[in-house]
């Protein structure tokens, strides 16, 4: 598996470390904060197919990346810098 880092170009997946699904936590002030925190920490969609996930380019530019990948085929569909997707 090779991942095309937007900054460094296409690199072997061994250069990256994996965190997991790109889960966003909701604001801390919500009334159902406790159950939302539980869902964000523990529950996962875990699809067989298109999956948005966080990778860290540890042996490269040290950027966090949002990678869209097919978990059934390992095909990489899109790679974005996490800081750009968060601000949008």
């Amino acid at each position, binding site marked *: *598996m090779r991942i095309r880092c937007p900054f460094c170009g296409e690199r*072997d*997946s*061994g250069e990256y*470390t*994996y965190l*997991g*699904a790109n889960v966003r936590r909701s604001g801390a002030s919500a009334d159902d904060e406790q*159950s939302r925190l*539980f*869902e964000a*920490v*523990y*529950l*996962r*969609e*875990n*699809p*067989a197919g298109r*999956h948005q*996930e966080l990778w860290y380019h540890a042996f490269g530019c040290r950027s966090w990346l949002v990678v869209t*990948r097919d*978990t*059934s*085929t*390992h095909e990489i569909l899109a790679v974005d810098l996490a800081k750009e997707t968060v601000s949008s």
Partner: protein
Amino acid sequence: MRYSVFNLIYHALRGHRGWTPAWRDAQPQRAYEVIIVGGGGHGLATAYYLARNHGIRRIAVLEKSYIGSGNAGRNTTIIRSNYLLPGNLPFYELSMKLWEGLEQQLNYNAMVSQRGVLNLFHSDAQRDSLARRGNAMRMHRVDAELLDVAAVRRIAPFLDFETARFPIKGGLLQRRGGTARHDAVVWGYARAADSLGVDIVQNCEVTGFIRESGRLSGVETTRGEIRATKIGIAVAGNTSRLARMAGFHLPIESHVLQAFVSEAIKPLIPGVVTFGAGHFYISQSDKGGLVFGGDLDGYNSYAQRGNLPMVENVCEEGLALIPGMARVRMLRSWGGVMDMSMDGSPIIDRSPVDGLYLNGGWCYGGFKATPASGWCFAHLIARDESHEVARAYRLSRFASGHIIDEKGQGAQPNLH
């Protein structure tokens, strides 16, 4: 047909032409009392114990491919009960005891071989940690022996003891641990369940759940609708997919784990040996191949195959432990899809949907658990209450904070 040595001699003298299939390839009926989804070791064991321990007769096991085609046929065949936490120890020890009587119980040679499981340590801290584990095991009446380096040398002289980075200082040995023939476990349970009237339906994939007036009443499959009011799922690797069909999410990620076998060599490794300085375990099959594995690839996957960086990593660890392996050729590698739960421990519990029961989250400890998993899951389905050794495996433990995290990694499935 009951298998025995007389039976074998009788058929041998007649040229082995009289053997009959060990189980029926059943056609699905319209309705059953209980449906088990998943024809692996866990599903078949569940069906067998439902019939044998709880007297339920109308049971179907639905398998999307052929039985044992998933993780039951992809593991490294290790059996052991060397756990630390009180939530795990009694469960895995029940499993160990069931392994010890399995072949007589099933009248099937599962090649259970208690050749010992040796966990090596390489530092004082690791010695302390394994001593603690050994003490926990002995307090639960599980056998454990802490070995010094001389004792390890007697068992496994081929290890690299003197490397500067990871010198071997000793090990924790569970003599009752060992290996079993994974396919024979599947076939043995299938044959025993079939003889009690269980229908084993192959090439029958579940595609949805049927609900009528708010209640679960059956499954939709590639071979038509099949009704039952109690449905158990034992499809580790794909538990999240079935859960989504039923409308809920689970604290599980699916990950690929690779395993490897070398060409056959003469007897070298007497039991199972695990490397303490990395994550590597190895044993030798009765055919002579070295069977070994290591870490997960580390990313979500349903592909049943992994990537090369982990192949390299596992082989490097193997050579660090057994330099002589450099001259052995690797024959095959393969991947299986693991249900990696958020605390590294399994789930045997009712699901949020009435009548739907969950058995999953086995991480990479599923094979050794097969007998106890079936035993406890059958108990849950038949009586609607957890078996006493599986009480800790509740789905609600993640929300309530009662997680069973053997490795202490937190909610990071690829690190368990």
